[in-house]
């Protein structure tokens, strides 16, 4: 697996490269947006990790330039120095698949990288049955059991649960969830997603005690992950 890292802070880049290489990834490091844009057409990557603030341009601009030259892009993770809502929303609106707030912990970065790569690998397959600890999802009979007991879910809740589990650890934007689970949904019904996610959390007991964490990212998106 090959990863392109675009980061101008050398101390930071060095640490991140070390983490990635120890996890057996091949890493190409670029310091400026222009360097990266010059080299990238000749190379194939499985994942991009971009810093938001670069000396010559902003991360999202690099992303737009890349998109103009190639129609098939690997997933993109953004490093951002700011954790405020506006910045996260900007990252997501720019089309990033996920973000990591600096200073990132090793575990956090690796979890994000692995989740995105896993998602790409298993995108189109649907298996008959998924098992996640005490939880079992049968996709044919559409039945969910928690520690052997059946949990009654509505159709939409089941679809949502399946989508969350298939994309474990991945940041799923609210708009994306609306489109995937409900088809098109009007802006007025944004509460729908929040309410369904909240039902899932309580019905399937997706709480840290059971090893799960279902988080709302500033209401712009959700992430289901295993509690580390």
């Amino acid at each position, binding site marked *: 697996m090959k990863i392109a890292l675009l980061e101008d*802070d050398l*101390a*930071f880049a060095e*640490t991140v490269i070390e983490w990635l290489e120890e996890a057996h990834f091949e890493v190409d490091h670029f310091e400026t947006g222009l360097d990266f844009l010059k080299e990238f057409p000749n190379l194939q990557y499985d994942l991009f990790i971009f810093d938001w603030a670069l000396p010559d341009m902003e991360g999202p601009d690099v992303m737009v330039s890349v998109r103009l030259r190639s129609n098939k892009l690997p997933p993109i993770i953004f490093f951002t*120095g*700011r954790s*405020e*809502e506006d910045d996260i929303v900007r990252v997501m609106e720019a089309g990033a698949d996920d973000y990591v707030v*600096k*200073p*990132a912990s*090793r575990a956090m970065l690796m979890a994000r990288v692995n989740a995105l790569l896993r998602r790409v690998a298993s995108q189109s397959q649907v298996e008959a049955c998924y098992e996640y600890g005490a939880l079992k999802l049968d996709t044919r009979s559409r039945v969910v059991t928690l520690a052997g007991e059946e949990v*009654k879910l*509505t159709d939409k809740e089941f679809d949502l649960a399946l989508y969350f589990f298939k994309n474990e650890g991945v940041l799923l934007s609210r708009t994306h969830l609306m489109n995937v689970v409900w088809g098109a949904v009007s802006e007025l*019904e*944004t*509460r*729908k997603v*929040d*309410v*369904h*996610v*909240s*039902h899932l*959390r*309580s019905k399937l007991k997706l*709480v*840290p*005690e059971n090893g799960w*964490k*279902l*988080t*709302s990212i*500033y*209401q712009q998106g959700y992430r289901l992950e295993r*509690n580390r």
Partner: protein
Amino acid sequence: MNMFVSAMRLNDKIFTTIVLILLSALFSSSGVFTGVDRLIYEGMQWLHYEEASDSVVRLVSLPVTIATSVLLAILPLLWLPKLTPCKSLMVNFLYLIAVIFIVYAGAVLFRLWVRPSGALLAILLAYPVWRWRRLDSAQLFLDRELQNLRDELAALGMEQEEEVGVVNEDPLQYRISRVQLTAKHLRDLHKSRSDTLTFISHDIRAPLGAAMLLLDKFENNKYTERMERMITRAHAMAEGFLQASRAEMVNVNKFQELDMVSLTQQAVDDVYEIALAKQLQLSTQLPEDPLWVRGDFGLLLRAVSNVLLNAVKYSPDQSEVKVLMTSDAQSLTLKVIDQGPGIPAKKVTKIFKRFSRADGEHQAQEGSGLGLYFVNVTLRKHRGTVVAQSEEGRGATFIITLPLERRKINNPVDNERRALIPAMFSDSI
């Protein structure tokens, strides 16, 4: 400043009193307005024609007339300072009519005629004199305060650009534009202060974050541990500053609908690990249905997390932290109850101020001293409240209240619940 205002008001009263005394005495003693007196007297005779024609009405002496006029003339000062301009004008008019009737009554009942012209004219003038005086002092005060403000700003090296083109206009308009300019200038200053703070905090955070990463490369020993603690604390302080300034500057027009039940659940999930490390029991009692409020998700999540973290931080190992949420038609109440050492009574109101900690000796403890200040600012911005109740040695309870969103909620109804609805109404159909 208040003292200055009240002193000014007192001066205005004395000034108006003196003017009214002089006017009423002058009018009543000089006989300039005898025509007015005669008119009123004839009016009275016409009203009480029979009685007046066959009885003698005695004219009171000049000193008594002057004294009565003065007394009647200064009475409006009892209400003029208290009422709005429109009300004082109306009350004065009624008073004027009342005085005429009092004079009539004196003539009819006691056969005494007090010449009323002095008092009446002074009463007519009472309102304009008082208002003129007030307006003058208010403008004087405004000018002086504005000048002080501009001097202070200039002393800080932040001079305003001079306004153009309004100087020669109406003086009131001129003052209004100066106030507007100064207010705008102050808003700009506030914004630039906050921007600077954000900038500094952000720029301090970045290298500290990098230093934290570098520390990972060293083998753990007591020095790296100490350094990590110090860097973590500095980082937390920069973060605290940034968040506090963000809460202060939040735009309430950008608030969105959010469910406080899941937000609180998320905050509880976030502190789970820390609670687990201290073997704390986190018991939550949250409503099953969502409770919608209008707010900033990031700020409210952090506010609830700060209260929870505070409870977890001060709780002894193996104790219990309770999280309860209830609601009524208008608002929701979130209580976080710990079994920690509690907060001394005299400190309980101070903990929401900047740079305060429950215990002054815990300076070395991590945290910026801005955590609860942030909670307070955030809640105020959301028209909510946060209070702490505690007795020393008996734990503390933090109570957050928030107004609920009033828009009618169209919850998606579950299939199961939808099936129940007809059954509930079947009896009445």
